[in-house]
């Protein structure tokens, strides 16, 4: 949470001058279930990335070799800082490589 500044310390008119500073809202804490990508099943089709409303799926230039020996230059990873656990990605993945698993409550 941001510091509560006085009226003399903030820009006039309620202007927000730092674009996309909403990254400070870690909406991942809302989640009750988390998507988990099976990197071996994933065909790198980009569909989950495209349909995530947040966006909370990272497209990384990270090479990956599947168990069956297939090489990929890209890896898709969930950004759990922002993922709200909606499950759209799992629902849209054409090869069902994403599973929604319940968030475990921290003991």
């Amino acid at each position, binding site marked *: 949470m*941001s510091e509560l500044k006085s009226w003399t310390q*903030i820009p006039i008119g*309620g202007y*927000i001058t*730092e*674009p*996309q*500073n*909403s*990254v*400070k*809202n*870690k*909406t991942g804490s*809302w*989640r009750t279930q988390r998507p988990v990508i099976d990197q071996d099943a994933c065909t790198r*089709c*980009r*569909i989950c990335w*495209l*349909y*995530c*409303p*947040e*966006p*909370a799926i990272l*497209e990384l230039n990270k090479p990956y070799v599947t168990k069956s020996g297939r090489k990929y230059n890209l890896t898709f990873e969930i*950004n759990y*800082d*922002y993922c*709200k*656990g*909606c*499950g*759209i990605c*799992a*629902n*849209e993945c054409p090869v069902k490589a994403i599973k*929604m698993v319940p968030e475990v409550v921290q003991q």
Partner: protein
Amino acid sequence: MGMASGQIKIGIRTIWDIPKEEYFGPGQLTCAGCGPSLAVRHILKAAGPDVIVVNATGCIEVTSTQYPYTAWGVPYIHVAFENAAAVASGIEAAIKALNRKGIANAKAKVIALAGDGGTYDIGMQALSGMLERGHGVLYVLYDNEAYMNTGIQRSGGTPRFAWTTTSPVGSRIRGKVQSKKDIMSIVIAHHIPYAATASIAYPIDLMNKVRKALDALNEGPAFLHVFAPCPPGWRIDDSKTVEIARLAVETGVFPLFEWDHGKFRLNPPSNMHVDKSKRKPLINYLKPQGRFAHLKEEEIKAMEAEVDGYWDYLTRLLKAFG
């Protein structure tokens, strides 16, 4: 005026052509699975950074600008609920005047963004004024078919029979009595250069339409009607937002089409749907949605007749302007 319009570039052919840059979010406070949030993400990807967004009061506005945080990566202004088109008109006029007088050298295009409430209902007058005056503004209606920000009240864009908190399902009246307003016909009646429907389920189509629309702004206004389901408002599972949007197109409830410089065109997959047998059964769309859970056989039939009626109208448009 037609020169520029004849040479529209289709920028995005495959999913890999979609820009990586993000100009909206993350960290906006929309519900999980929010359709409008996804729509904004797609629209800004297509538009790029040189735009000014004018947002009407509604879900997107309240969830994306909670002080001192903003989800917007482009210049943004919210003024009120009913006036996005008027504010956008003012900005467009200012840019024209300042550029002409050598005071500024701004290239930014203006995008007005409003919900169904802010467009079909309270914002209709300002929208019509903007279209009539011919401001070079892209007006995007994100349609979640009710006033969601204030807790799911019916709007002129809510479909017939749908449950909302102001069209409840009672023993005497069962859901919304009136039909959804045909906003596209109203907009097209202003004879603007470009107007189209689009859906979050068809992002490539949507993004190309955003670009076509922005290209048309030197000739006048453009309008996009973007279908964007809302899980809490429609009583659907958070994961079904895109699926339901796709079903709306596949069942013919929300056809994809363009009004492009006086020509009417159905876009895939809706271009196959003149033939009713190519449409999926309406029930596939209605069944998963809690807002339609109360529908009886005859109400579903009535709804189907409405969809057929609209297709009949579109078919005639196609004949006249195709």
